């Protein structure tokens, strides 16, 4: 599996004739246009580690605004059925990105932006699953008994899982029609609204990402109506300083852009390596995005 992923990396790197930076699992250093607004609806389907099945989902509506050519702001909401059987609203987040360095030339740029995100989530710190089992009752019959299994999570995911704050930088380089983006941020776990951080859960997290993009279609741009197809591979990692715990995920993605204004992203994220207690190591993601330019 790892060999295949590295091969994909190398092939993308060497053959990319056009590059795209509208990454699916991370944000590029570039911002959206001043005065534009955007709407996203993201849905993740998680393969849960406790039952090895795709039984949890999370829905995230997101509103984006291009405040200036340097600053953009996102507001997102989260809801899922991860910690209970029925869908429940979990909380929300506020994200801001400030582009402070740009070096542009025709068909190339190097940009750096600083970003921060705060997330307030109302989830428990542990997943409790109740199962009913039939056990001998001692009288030759069977009786039903209720078992509760507890699954802990040390994962740092402020997009719905836990409250927290992150701050970091992202740099995107587009040169010779190849785009590579790298980001590094520091995260701090905050208490969830009704569940304090557990004593053994790591507070600090360092998150990093490396993203690569490739424009598959169209071969030549002639109109804004052409549907664009982009392929992405992103490496997403988190380490917990002083804890010796980490996880590194890979997320290939395909993206369709319609009328140069709407996006459909499909991605699959899976763990490459890691030793952290997580509720899920894999998810499928679908995201719709629609932008309104010159909205204000």
């Amino acid at each position, binding site marked *: 599996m790892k060999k295949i992923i590295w091969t994909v990396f190398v092939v993308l790197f060497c053959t990319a004739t056009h590059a795209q930076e509208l990454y699916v699992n991370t944000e590029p250093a570039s911002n959206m246009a001043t005065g534009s607004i955007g709407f996203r609806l993201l849905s993740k389907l998680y393969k849960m580690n406790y039952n090895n099945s795709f039984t949890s989902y999370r829905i995230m509506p997101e509103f984006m605004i*291009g405040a200036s050519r340097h600053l953009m702001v996102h507001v997102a909401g989260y809801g899922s059925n991860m910690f209970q059987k029925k869908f429940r609203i979990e909380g929300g987040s506020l994200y801001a990105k400030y582009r402070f360095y740009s*070096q542009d030339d*025709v068909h*190339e*740029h190097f940009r750096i932006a600083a970003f921060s995100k705060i997330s307030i989530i109302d989830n428990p710190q542990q997943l409790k699953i109740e199962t009913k089992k039939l056990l001998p009752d001692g009288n030759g019959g069977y009786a039903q008994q209720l078992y509760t299994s507890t699954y802990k999570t040390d994962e740092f995911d402020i997009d719905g899982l836990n409250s927290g704050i992150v701050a970091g930088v992202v740099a995107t380089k587009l040169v010779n029609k190849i785009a590579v983006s790298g980001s590094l941020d520091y995260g701090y776990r905050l208490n969830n609204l009704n569940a304090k951080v557990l004593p053994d859960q790591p507070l600090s997290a360092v998150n990093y990402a490396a993203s690569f993009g490739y424009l598959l279609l169209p071969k030549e741009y002639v109109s804004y109506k052409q549907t664009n197809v982009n392929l992405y591979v992103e490496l997403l990692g988190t380490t917990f300083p002083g804890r010796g715990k980490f996880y590194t995920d890979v997320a290939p993605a395909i993206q369709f*852009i319609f009328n*140069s204004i709407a*996006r459909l992203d499909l991605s699959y994220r899976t763990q490459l390596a890691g030793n952290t207690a997580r509720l899920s190591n894999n998810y499928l993601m679908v995201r719709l995005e629609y932008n309104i*330019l*010159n909205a204000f």
Partner: protein
Amino acid sequence: MKNIIFIFLLLCAAVTNAQVKKVSIQASGLTCSMCSNAIFKALKSVDFVEKVDANIKNSTFEITFKPNADVDFDKLKNKVEGAGFFVAGFWATVHFDNLKIKNDAPVESIGKNLMFLHVADQELNGDKTVKFLDKGYTSAKEYKKNSTLTTKECYKTGIADATCIDSGISKGSRIYHVTI
């Protein structure tokens, strides 16, 4: 009768006055059509713009204007920057009417203050395309290279100071640097 003569003279003035016929902008920093569309829509939203033709592949935009529009070049440049990108090249096709120009000397035309650089002294007539050299109107590399063409301070600021003023061009007014 006097009024009719006055209107006739005004019409003549409108016809013979130098005017901007079209502007071409090449944007830098993008390869995607979504990015190009952001610039296209931003340019289209400008009040004096009539039509924008985009070449997505080359990131160029050809802009034509409403009749008798006062074309604000800075506004067009700022729209490209507002969309999140930069101007790598900015050209205006202007209809000139007996405009005498001298190298590195200010002159008034198209309702703007212009400073022609890297040109021979001449008289401009008919449609000519001028290339803008000011900061933000060309690549940073080219702007730096062109700094040897003049020693005047207004090349750096875009604002007429004591070295860049002439009769009719007041200190502190916007001055554009162009070449042919």
